[in-house]
């Protein structure tokens, strides 16, 4: 294992210390209980607070999205491990400004349970909390016989659009409704060429042969649909986009935001090769590419691979997408 770290047990702490030192204009770091990254100017009078979080190792998710127009706080857990209720509660307190707080939670048992406890404790302190569970990953069957779909790169879009709604002054009910609408219209699927290594584990989370790829990979290296022989990028894109298109389903005339997301160790040129084919498939289907986002936003340490995300938008959602955002990892508008 070769990493730019000092101590496998301190990677989360030191990475957050660096993040806070690099972005003092955007965030402050809560170290007790460890850890929460809170928007520098929170709480903002009368604004709904938005808190997200989850295991570390998916950077820039979530801390990189704290700032005007997006999250009020991010609660990073240990590497790939949901945070405990204490820092979630503390973050909720710090961003509560009288208008209630929205928790955006990726659908993993640990995240759901820990955010649930924190929400109960916050409620007991008189803070109104609503929770939205994100489960956009079509690689996993959503049935009574699974923990349900995982929350993956679509989380970024839920955070962006809900954040924009909160920023313009929408009520907690309305912000939560928007977050649920976005979740209901966003679908993702990912793949891996090569695994990542969690620092304290010291060995790769899974093994792939030199000619194998995993289709439907999770962002913690959880296996997905199938393991196949390496194929040209265009064929791999087809394997990812078909299940996404069929699922909602996305139809001719739909307008979409297309997010091509790198898993952490994928060069940008490959993301654009993937984008090219995905845009081609959409054009073939008569689906309108309303907006494009390409980058490594919801990652899995240095995993090599990519995920595709499609969000079906109308004018209202597009307005929220286009609204200004000022965070370490996502910036546009004013």
């Amino acid at each position, binding site marked *: 294992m070769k990493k730019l770290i000092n101590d496998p047990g301190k990677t989360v702490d030191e990475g957050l210390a660096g993040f806070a030192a690099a972005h003092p204009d955007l965030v402050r770091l809560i170290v007790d209980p460890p850890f929460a990254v809170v928007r520098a100017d929170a709480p903002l009078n009368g604004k709904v607070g938005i808190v997200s979080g989850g295991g570390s190792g998916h950077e820039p998710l979530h801390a990189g999205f704290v700032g005007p127009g997006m999250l009020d706080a991010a609660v990073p857990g*240990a590497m790939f491990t949901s945070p405990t*209720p204490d820092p979630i509660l503390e973050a909720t307190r710090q961003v509560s400004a009288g208008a209630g707080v929205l928790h955006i939670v990726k659908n993993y048992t640990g995240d759901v349970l820990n955010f649930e406890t924190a929400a109960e404790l916050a409620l007991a302190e008189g803070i109104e909390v609503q929770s939205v569970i994100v489960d956009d990953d079509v690689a*996993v069957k959503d049935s009574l016989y*699974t923990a349900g779909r995982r929350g993956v790169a679509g989380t970024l879009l839920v955070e962006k659009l809900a954040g924009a709604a909160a920023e313009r002054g929408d009520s907690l009910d309305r912000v939560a409704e928007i977050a649920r609408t976005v979740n209901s219209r966003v679908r993702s699927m990912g793949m891996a060429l090569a695994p990542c290594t969690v620092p304290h584990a010291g060995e790769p989370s899974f093994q792939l042969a030199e000619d194998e790829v995993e289709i439907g990979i*999770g962002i913690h290296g959880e*296996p997905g649909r199938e393991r196949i022989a390496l194929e040209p990028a265009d064929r791999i894109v087809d394997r990812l986009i078909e299940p996404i298109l069929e699922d909602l389903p996305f139809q001719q005339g739909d307008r979409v935001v297309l997010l091509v997301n790198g898993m952490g160790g994928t060069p940008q040129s490959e993301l654009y090769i993937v984008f090219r084919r995905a845009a081609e498939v959409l054009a073939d289907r008569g689906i309108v590419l309303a907006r494009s986002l390409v980058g490594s936003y919801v990652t899995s340490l240095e995993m090599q691979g990519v995920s595709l995300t499609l969000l079906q938008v109308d004018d209202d959602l597009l307005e929220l997408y286009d609204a200004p955002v000022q965070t370490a990892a996502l910036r546009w508008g004013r």
Partner: protein
Amino acid sequence: MGPVSTEGSVALDGAWTRRWIEAVAAEVSRRKAELTALDRAIGDADHGENLDRGFQAVLGKLDALDDGATPAAVLRLVATTLISTVGGAAGPLYGTAFLKASMAAGDRDALDAAALVEVLTAARDGIVARGKAESGDKTMVDAWTPAVEAASAAGDDVRAALAAAAEAAAEGAIATEPLVAHKGRASYLGERAVGHRDPGAESTALILAAAAETP
């Protein structure tokens, strides 16, 4: 307080509860890599690390407890510490288990066999209430439920009850191997989870084995 005989029966008082938890912490530490390896196969390779972080934190807090602390007080400390240090799925689930166990222990100074069964049942029910897993879903519930049943069938010798619970939990953990998972991360694997033991069921067996062996 001197060493307690390992023969015959034992009083499950506050001091015993503390020794048990210390033994759990030692075992988790020793078998951390093994638990994590089980989780690597069908999860995300952190179960051993998670529990070790939690029980090491518990060790650090045990000293602050009164010498005369009741079993409930020890269990409550374990619960709150696991909740605030473990995270993931295991943190809230084990946290709830110890919390409900502590509530079931009440203000008793020591647990007799009947109380032990009540406590184990409360722990199991807490996990089921939080995680909504059924038997056969390939989770820690598949170790807890047989353990509760075996303890209640063991009569009123606490040591026999503990031994029966430990044995049943161990068997329950092994019995998760052929199953497809319906809860937790392993559920994402479908048929590919078959042949692997559930890490949480294994850590449950570890916790109950430590109880059976604690003098």
